[in-house]
């Protein structure tokens, strides 16, 4: 009985609030489906009023480039988390891909290749990410060990690999075209912003329109049902781990093009930031719920907050406190909004 009521809880609110004129009601309902965007609008207006430097095209481009790193990983993390899994190793993969790419393009073998030497390096970097994702996925599939533990191990192990591989050294990109790419623009937008936006749209389409996307929700929502229906859950989850591995590697590469270098400590704590952004965007840790529009909002919220507070010259540490507070507040609000369903059983 409690179960049947629980399902009705969340749906009530939008319907009741949506009784006004149709244009307003549909946008209101949309906002309630993605509460993070309301927050994005609020902080956007707030910083536009509070500081002169915020509201400018140049700054918006900045924000997009700054968020692109976290944002790319968050795209993949959304898939993995909707699956009911998690990937804590993304930060380490960022460092590995960046170090590999920057190092390999300097190998003597490719010396005569000119700018083409970047190509095998990038392929190797991305390949390493996909491979590590596949390894995580394979272990989760074949051993049945919780993804949290598997990727926690990988987080340590891959970081260890990075330190051993680099000998704890930073690498610098000898090919200047690499660093130029990170600073380049295309049709008036920074190239890195384009990369982020294009992949956002792409993953959104995959998740909302394709069979793989529908299966992603099904597996996270009710794994037993997915198995019963004949979905090959193990390989399916592995693919999503490979996707998040790809995006973590891509983020590492774009980050190193911005710096023209890689450091072995690159991407530390990224897993926590990415999970924060994804959860802010409405993805449930228990799986089965979430979407890319929300995740994009979550990433932007963090990006605008960091950027705006930086412009207001608020010390960086307040951002940490505010971010933690927002994360808990969002969780608290979500709990309150969905509460009616419990019918007051005191557990």
């Amino acid at each position, binding site marked *: 009985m409690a179960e049947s009521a629980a399902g009705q809880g969340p749906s009530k609110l939008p319907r009741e609030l949506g009784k006004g004129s149709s244009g307003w009601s549909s946008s209101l309902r949309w906002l309630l489906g993605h509460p993070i965007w309301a927050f994005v609008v609020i902080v956007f207006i707030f910083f536009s009023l509070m500081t002169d430097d915020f509201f400018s095209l140049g700054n918006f481009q900045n924000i997009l480039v700054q968020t692109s790193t976290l944002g790319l990983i968050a795209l993949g993390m959304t898939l993995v988390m909707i699956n009911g899994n998690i990937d804590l190793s993304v930060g380490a993969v960022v460092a590995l891909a960046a170090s590999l790419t920057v190092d390999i393009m300097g190998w003597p073998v490719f010396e005569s290749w000119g700018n083409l030497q970047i190509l095998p390096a990038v392929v190797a970097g991305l390949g390493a990410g996909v491979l590590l994702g596949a390894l995580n996925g394979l272990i989760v599939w074949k051993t049945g060990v919780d993804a949290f533990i598997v990727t926690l191990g990988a987080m340590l192990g891959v970081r260890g690999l990075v330190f051993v591989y680099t000998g704890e050294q930073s690498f610098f990109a000898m090919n200047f075209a690499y660093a130029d790419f990170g600073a380049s623009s295309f049709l008036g937008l920074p190239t890195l912003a384009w990369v982020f936006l294009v992949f956002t749209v792409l993953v959104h389409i995959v998740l909302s329109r*394709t*069979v793989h996307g529908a299966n992603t929700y099904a597996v996270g929502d*009710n794994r037993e049902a997915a198995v019963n229906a004949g979905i090959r859950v193990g390989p399916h989850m592995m693919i999503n781990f490979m996707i998040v591995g790809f995006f973590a590697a891509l983020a590492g590469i774009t980050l190193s093009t911005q710096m023209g270098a890689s450091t072995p400590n690159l991407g530390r704590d990224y897993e926590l930031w990415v999970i924060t952004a994804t959860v802010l965007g409405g993805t449930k840790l228990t799986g089965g719920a979430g979407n890319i529009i929300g995740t994009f909002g979550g990433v932007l919220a963090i990006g605008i907050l960091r950027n705006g507070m930086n412009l207001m010259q608020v010390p960086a540490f307040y951002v940490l406190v505010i971010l933690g507070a927002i994360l808990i507040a969002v969780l608290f609000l979500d709990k309150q909004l969905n509460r009616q369903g419990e019918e*007051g059983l005191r557990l």
Partner: protein
Amino acid sequence: MSDVKPALRLEGIVKTFPGVRALDGVDFEVRPGEVHALMGENGAGKSTLMKVLAGMYQPNEGQILIEDRPTIMANPIEAKHNGVILIHQELSLAEQLTVAENIFLGELPRSRLGFVDWKILDDRVGTILQKLNCDFGPRTKVGKLSIAKKQMVEIARALTHEGRVVVFDEPTASLTDAEKVVLFDVINELKADGVGIVYISHRMEEIFTISDRITVLRDGTYRGTLTTAETDEDEVTQLMIGRSLDYSRNESSGEFGDLVLEVAGLSCGKLFEDVSFNVRAGEVVGFYGLVGAGRTEIAETLFGLREPTAGSIRLNSSDVSIASPAEAIANGISLVPESRKEQGLVLGMNCRDNITLPQVGDMTAGPFVSNGAEVAIYDMYRDRLDIKAPTWRSLVGNLSGGNQQKIVIGKWLAMKPRLLIVDEPTRGIDVGSKAEIHNLIRELARSGYAVIVISSEMPEILRVSDRVIAMYQGRITREFTAAEVNEDNLVQAISGISGDEAAA
């Protein structure tokens, strides 16, 4: 009939798991257009057999013949394509997805590039839903549907393929009587279309209403096939457990002790309203009604899990307010909850620790739990309830359903309550253990406990109760003594039909 080619035949199926021979040479056949019931106690191998049928397990020996053609089904999708469709016992649905996505889960129609082809999906699902007279559309989210409607979604899966054989595994477990009628209509329609139906259920009355033949399994072996029209419950039971059962009604003595519980005008929001009743020492009061009638909620309120909005509770002639289970326990109330695995037991704990859990704070020697006292309590209730567990160290999760239920009952008896509430005491328990638990409840009442039994099974209520309280939509409709009550007036009372209306 006998020369009809069977739609599906299983021959000598053997399925072993490490250390267990779950199926041992089982034969089974379904003819087109018949309902073939499959019965057996829990652990007899019904579910394993069905999983073999649905391609979820591969048999070690034996073969599956579909229309006399040996077939190997490597996974559920292949089974579906061969026309074998399994409707799961536990609702096997993804709540966040739409009805259409759920029905075609695992084989959503694709257009190019792996996109879902919504047009085809909506068309096909729309047709199926129409056929089933469903009042919801393909794009409705499953999470918003009632349990019965979810069951219809599950059934709709049976119609996505040209089914030869449809297997229903305990389909009525969560359905109300009215919804059962719809289900039986669907089954009869499928039957008329020449589909073979396998019907698994513990409930005898259903089996005898719907089935044409009955096959019985025991301990993974085939015990025989009976024609429903030519057999009776006793014969089926004998095949299932190897002996007959006592189905006698409770003979009420009519002599009870003091009033233990008096409830007056108790309400809890819309869950139940203005409920008044009392229970005496030595008496069993049965609560009967449809799922959602508010019976479990009353128990939860008495046990401090819900806050009443009105009314009073008196225990042993003094008013009490109960704000938590801890306070309910202090007041001498025990609740054996509805769901053994979710509410009753910590499955990863051993038998002893589960039984002593509510009183572990009182069983100390110095700051530590007294091992001796705990084992003494376990031994006492193991003997009294005849709990079959290797040692007290065995994890409760490894015991059979019947023994698990006895652990829960033992846990609450050990609290020496004045009032014992038992919610669905035999749900999911096989026939043999059921009778044992019924006898136990009678015995407890005889030894002076005041007992409330909540059940959705009429035979159970009739069997154990001294008094029956019927509920309909959160209100008490009628109270019967054991002498007054019979199946007809009880069904009327719980359907909201008053005696006059029924007569007119």
